[in-house]
């Protein structure tokens, strides 16, 4: 089986990306799992759907009410039972709404932040929770987590080359709580080093993580999601 190939871009990165960056892709992941300022506006999403021409997955982080409103507007405009919208979800409120309001028009995929909450649930509860909420796909960036969901009948989207380890809402780039954004993080990565770290920590957007290698081979990984990881800033 050949895995689908996706590229994940934040809304402003998509606007800045040349058209050739989208060639050969099966899907576009638009948004961000860690910062709500990088999630597309309803206008952004509509433009991306037109420009990309293929399937566009809406990627969302934990959401404040204001950000939820914007996601809701996108779902209302672009999701229908005939053309369900794939939605990467990291927020309990959004997952609940996906089941309660959009069960036939949205296909939720469990995001990488939410996934770490589900992985500590008792297996029986986790399986029921995912089934009840219509989750058939999980976003993963760590192969060690594959056995945790074994037997659940899930498909996996595997993300490379950035494995998330931590996330903040105190913007490390603009040194303030989230609010109107200057997009200082766009196209930039910082490398943090310390003698005790086995590998440098990378700061990408609002997330800290490490660079990873090739995705593992696993029969349930049917989608590979790449994301640009620029070289870290020079001193």
């Amino acid at each position, binding site marked *: 089986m050949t895995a689908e190939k996706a590229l994940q871009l934040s809304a402003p990165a998509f606007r800045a990306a040349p058209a050739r960056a989208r060639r050969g892709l099966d899907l576009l992941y638009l948004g961000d799992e860690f910062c709500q300022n990088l999630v597309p506006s309803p206008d952004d999403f509509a433009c991306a759907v037109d420009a990309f021409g293929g399937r566009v997955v809406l990627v969302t982080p*934990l*959401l*404040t*009410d*204001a*950000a*939820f409103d914007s996601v809701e507007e996108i779902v209302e405009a672009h999701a229908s039972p005939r053309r369900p919208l794939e939605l990467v979800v990291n*927020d*309990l*409120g*959004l997952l*609940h*709404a996906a089941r*309660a309001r959009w069960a036939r028009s949205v296909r939720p995929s469990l995001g990488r*932040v939410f996934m*770490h*909450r589900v992985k*500590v*649930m*008792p*297996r*029986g*509860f*986790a399986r029921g*929770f995912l089934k009840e909420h219509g989750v058939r796909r999980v976003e993963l960036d760590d192969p060690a987590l594959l056995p945790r969901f074994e037997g659940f009948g899930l498909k996996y989207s595997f993300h490379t080359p950035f494995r998330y*380890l*931590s*996330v*903040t*809402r*105190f*913007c*490390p780039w603009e*040194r*303030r*709580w*989230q*609010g109107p954004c200057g997009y200082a993080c766009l196209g930039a990565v*910082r*490398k*943090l*080093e*310390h003698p*005790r*770290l*086995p590998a440098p*920590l990378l700061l990408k957007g609002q997330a*800290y993580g490490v660079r990873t290698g090739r995705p593992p081979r696993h029969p349930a990984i049917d989608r590979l999601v790449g994301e640009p990881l620029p070289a*870290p*800033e*020079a*001193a």
Partner: protein
Amino acid sequence: MLIVAGSKAYEEAEWLLANGAAEVYCGVPGLPNHRDEDQCLKDDAEFVRIALMARARGKRALLAVNEACFEDSYPSVAARVKAILKACRVPVIIRELPLLHYLRARGVKADFIISSLSLVFNSRALDYYRGLGVKRVILPFHLQPSEAGRLVNNRYGMETEAFFHADFCCPNMDPACRLDGWLKAFQVCRFPYTCGGRPHRMPEADVPQKLDQVYDTFHAGVKYLKIIRVNDFRDQQEVLKEARVMLALLEKGVSRGEFRKLGEKLYFSVSRHGGRTGG
């Protein structure tokens, strides 16, 4: 606002309740909570004594069950929580969805308080908790009061609680931060890193930003102000006094500018923030 303070011992709880706290919250060893055992009470009996003492003063104790645990432990957790509630009816702070469902299915009747660690960032998440006996939600540390209007004024009448930001700041979002587990070390977020050859710390809010959060939390209409458990109780005593003075200023109606000015002096008078060492 009413102050909710964490407590590690009966004597601490007694002092906190006598000095301005309306509620104390405590963990007990073996019941999953977000602190190591050295920040818990000795046993369940000590919690019950605290709860009864608090009730005699017209105040309350809250039982913290705000951590994940293995499924094997669920029956014993439910039995112990039930026994505690039989001795003293108290609200239970809970984090994990499966444990909340389990406790309810086992007939644990309590007013539940959703932990900040449950990451309730919007009012729609409350739709999930509706009908599960939830009476209060503790706002996640990284959610700003300016973003929480609809959560605070939610349609279910759930109360809200927020951290006293002038005490501390976590650079990253607990529990979405896995750095400590990754490195098997403590407070990896506070390591002295280098970035491009220069010293680098993971950024966190500065003092004016922390004071703004206190100011905005008060004006957002959040009902409870949370002061966390710390190792050195003298620190917590100072922080409680600091919080009370700040609340008195806010109740007097000081402007944001005045609050920042006076609040900064108060902030640096606390040992934990450099007052004792002057650093």
